[in-house]
């Protein structure tokens, strides 16, 4: 199997605070990686470096064979120009904890925006594709609604459809259900599970252990800017080797 995401000794600091202290991680094409870890351990920051929303200080990340945010020449990495970075981002879908839908645009326009303006697709085709995506996430009748008129679960499903509209090779989810009322978590996880079963490569940061057990090919446990352990869900979740993993799991289970 080929590697979709290759992260090598990534370091990142915010001022004096070192948030990522040397992360190595490989995600194979078609697989689901779930990242667990306590709040503040650097999970969001790691996810954001993968589409260059956050720049790394050291190390490198490649997605589908190309370096993210940089061009290599000899032993130097040159930061890419904005336009090239934007093009790379269109191949990576990102779903935020707070949905971040555009409140002044209808659901349909939220989804159509990027394909039309970033990928230069004809609007007609983009609209057709968007309707199919809405159907897929079970919201075919909400095309003309505004985001604020939807429940949290519906908004997050629209956000997933919006990310899918770019036909990304990789999907990143940053705690997609953490902002939802408990009874709405299931509908969003169902959509993500569906994508997993269809072979979408994704990295999901979540506290939903049941979801990790069911869907993940690999579970990664992070703490204090490092990967403490990783492996098959059966191993990491049921037979954790590290004390820190054990104490974290005992708190969330």
């Amino acid at each position, binding site marked *: 199997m080929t590697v979709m995401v290759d992260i090598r000794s990534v370091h990142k600091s915010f001022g004096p605070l070192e948030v990522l202290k040397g992360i190595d991680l490989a995600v194979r094409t078609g697989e689901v990686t779930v990242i667990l870890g306590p709040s503040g351990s650097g999970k969001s920051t790691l996810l954001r470096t993968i*589409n260059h*929303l956050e720049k790394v200080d050291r190390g490198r990340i490649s997605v589908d064979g190309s370096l993210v945010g940089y061009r290599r020449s000899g032993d130097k990495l040159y930061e890419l120009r*904005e*336009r090239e970075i*934007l*093009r790379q*981002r*269109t191949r*990576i*879908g*990102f779903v*935020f904890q*707070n949905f*971040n*839908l*555009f*409140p*002044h*645009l*209808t659901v349909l326009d939220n989804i159509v*925006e*990027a394909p039309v*303006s*970033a*990928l230069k697709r004809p609007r007609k085709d983009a609209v057709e594709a968007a309707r199919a995506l809405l159907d897929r996430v079970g919201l075919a009748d909400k095309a003309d609604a*505004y*985001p*604020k*008129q939807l429940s949290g679960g519906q908004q997050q499903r629209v956000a997933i459809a*919006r*990310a899918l509209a*770019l036909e990304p090779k990789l999907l990143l989810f940053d705690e997609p259900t953490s902002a939802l009322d408990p009874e709405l978590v299931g509908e969003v996880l169902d959509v993500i599970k569906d994508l997993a079963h269809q072979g979408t490569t994704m990295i999901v940061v979540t506290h939903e252990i049941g979801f990790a057990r069911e869907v993940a090919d690999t579970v990664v446990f992070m703490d204090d800017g490092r990967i403490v352990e990783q492996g098959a869900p059966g191993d990491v979740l049921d037979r954790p080797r590290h004390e820190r993993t054990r104490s974290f799991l005992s708190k969330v289970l």
Partner: protein
Amino acid sequence: MSSDTLAKTSAAPDIPEQADSLRIVPQRRLGQWTAAVAVLVLLGLAVTSVVRNKAFQWGVVGDYFTSDSVLRGLWLTLWLTAVVMVLGFALGTLLAAARLSANPVLRSVSWGYVWLFRSIPILVQLLLWFNIGALYPELLGVKTVNLFTPIAVAIIGLTLHEAAYAAEVVRGGILSVDRGQIEAAQALGLSRWRRWWRIVLPQAMRSIVPPAGNMLIGTLKGTSIISVIAVQDLLFSVQLVYHRTYQVIPLLMVATLWYTVVTSVLGLGQYYVEKHYARGSERTR
């Protein structure tokens, strides 16, 4: 409290069976009624005194209300307001962008501009521009007095003044947009330009429009200050007439009525603009 009353209050209040058919009598608001009546009476007295006071010379007001010179003045006031608003907000938006940029030089220059032009009274600024020939008798080989005509001075002075305030209004609007919106747009690969025009600005407009509407009305009336440099706006036009005819009050009434009419129309326009930018917000659901 005696044990007797205590027993009474703690017992279930005696609500009859048909509780849901009881009529609700709202509290009587006597004070409010008296205040309303008093205010209406005073208002009535004021209006009758204005209408019946011969000194207002409403006939003269009617004669001049649509006279050529007044309409010419009104027209100048209107287009000057429009030009100053457009140029002022264009410059103000640039200043706001500079203030929010990562470049420390741009940030300081923007800050300094706003500080300076909010500090100088507009009247002082107009007089300075009007007399700039004293500082620079010639600019680019042209006599400064020919370049800085009264109307040019009015446009320059009012625009520079307006821009300082517009910069703060626009900056406030941009800051009111959630940071996550920009990140989402970046993650979707939208270009800088597109993020600005399609995502940030329309959302910022919600907080920009109300103060901008205020500024527009303020500018409309504020342009009357240029009568000091003899630009023939609405106010100056009526002044020209009453200097000749001595009908001061009725001609000031002509100006007052026109300012009121235009302000009302603008207020109505603002209502619709606000409605437009409130699309998708919870409050209009």
